[in-house]
């Protein structure tokens, strides 16, 4: 008996059409930016989320906000820092509980960073695993094969871990369930030039690309 006939018979027996193909929507966690959460629904667990954009586009502030939210939920997080750019003081100021954060400094080696991220996901138990390629030259990041991203996506599937990749441009392509393209808006300064000038904040606009749904709220990261 063909599969279609079997399916029809089974559905008639159960009394209605059954959705066999679609998977349940993943649980989402908040990023800490209400506008972004309202627009995207949060960051999906068991999926790869990609945050990319040029320098000073608010990627790191967004990332630290996500980590702060996760550690506030008493989850253990890990950051694989490919370029050794993570600043613990900034993270602590953003509310990240450093004693719930495992920091892996892979010293300008993207290949080691990928291996480390894979090991952390396989180890399990982490709420958020971050692969930070934010300062890795685009040419180097582009050399990471799509197979590696597929491997990471497969590894994180069916786990409660939120896998986040931070880079200058999109690398994971279709492997990412959610892409947040950050763009600079403007920097806010206060005081007169050459006297009491202060950098107050930067505004950034992340554009979310989640299947066919696109949104672009603005958030402001304050310096003080």
């Amino acid at each position, binding site marked *: 008996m063909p599969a279609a006939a079997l399916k029809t018979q089974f559905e008639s027996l159960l009394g209605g059409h059954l959705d066999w193909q679609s998977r349940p929507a993943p649980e989402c966690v908040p990023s800490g930016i209400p506008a972004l959460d309202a627009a995207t629904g949060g960051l999906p667990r068991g999926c790869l989320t990609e945050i990319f954009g040029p320098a000073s586009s*608010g990627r*790191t502030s967004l990332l*630290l906000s996500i980590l702060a939210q996760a550690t506030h939920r008493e989850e253990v997080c890990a950051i694989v820092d490919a370029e*050794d750019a993570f600043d613990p003081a900034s993270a602590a100021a953003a509310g990240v509980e450093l004693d*719930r*954060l495992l*920091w892996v400094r892979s010293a300008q080696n993207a290949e080691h960073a990928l291996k480390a991220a894979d090991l952390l996901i396989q180890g399990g138990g982490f709420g958020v695993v971050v692969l930070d390629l934010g300062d890795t030259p685009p040419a180097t990041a582009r050399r990471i094969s799509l197979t590696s991203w597929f491997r990471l996506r497969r590894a994180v599937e069916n786990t409660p871990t939120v896998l986040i990749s931070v880079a200058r441009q999109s690398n994971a392509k279709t492997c990412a369930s959610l892409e947040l393209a950050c763009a600079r808006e403007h920097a806010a300064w206060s005081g007169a030039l050459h006297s009491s000038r202060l950098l107050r904040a930067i505004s950034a606009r992340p554009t979310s690309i989640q299947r066919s749904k696109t949104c672009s709220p603005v958030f402001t990261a304050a310096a003080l």
Partner: protein
Amino acid sequence: MFACLHGSGPLTALAFQFSPTVEQTAPDTVTFDASGLERLFGFAQDIAASLARRAGELGVEAAIAIAPNPDAAICAARGFSGTSVIPYGDEAKFLAPLPVALLSPSPELQETFDRWGIRRFQDLAALPPLGIAERLGLEGLRLRELARGEAGRKLLPLADPLRFEDRIELDYPVELLEPLAFVLARLINALATSLAARALATDEIRLQLKLENRATHERVLRLPVPTLDTKAFLKLLDLDLSQNPPSAPVVEVRMAMNPVKPQSAQSGLFVLAAPEPVKLELTVARLKAIVGPGRVGTPVLLDTHRPDAFRMTPAFVPSAPPSAPKFRLSIRLFRPPRAAQVALASGYPSFVAAGAIRGKILDLAGPWRTSGDWWTADPWLRDEWDVALSDGALYRLYCDPRGWFVEGSYD
């Protein structure tokens, strides 16, 4: 049958080699239950000879006595030098010449014995029990029993100090880690089995490798929680040895495990999942093998104003409850800071070139002068600037006695 050792040296260790029931009677006296040893050694004289031989090997200088009851053995060991074997029923006859002072009577009783002219065990043993009970009370009766070698009691045994150690001497030197792993696996399994038999786990594994060049290579593996996961032990030791290999082929492997009670904790229904401690230790060890030691851990901020001051700790130590998250502007650091060439205009930076970072300064804030540790050998002093470059990015620039540097980018 009981044996007593009276003297100096590792008496307890010697006694434990012959019996599990050992009493530390006094600092210089150890008594143990020797019943059953005749099946191993033969007659009491043979047991005594074996004891004397082993004592010589261990460097113990002690009088050895074997008797049907512990107190007779103690009196004989304290009273006679060398080796004494008291046959069953001859205790009183054997102990007869010993001085009464050996029984440590109270000063009043000793005075009474002196007045009565009782100097030796045989004098005390010959006194009628009823008369002693009337005149000297219970203590007198006890001393008479001791003098006759009739006192019977149970030993107060010492707890055997638990040691989980094992060693394997190799037939030929092993150079590679892979064959060594088989030896390690054998030791780990044997020790873990003996720990499991006593419902114990371990939180520390000490490995000692004797090398062909007569050197010793020691490694200590500390675990975050007590466990008996033999596969994890083997993998951790393997990773550790691959990072810190011995300098020469291995000829002998010694391993010791620290016995501790296993961790017993009930997980809460609403407690969030966290990495399993042993699995996390294994993951961290693997990460260290990839990125190098000292580059994996939890950052701890140091109590100083010095920029980028932190240290790495090996494991998570969640202490305080988490504070409320705050959304703040963050910085990405360049480690080491990038040396920059800065053009000044009217005393303010106007152009920056530091490798790929290059541009005209459109806006700036600063200088923020900071310094510290001037009382130490490693002082620091710098002027910081926040600059917006023509490429659109915001950077932190600083100037110290060595020159200009770009410390990081605001992101």
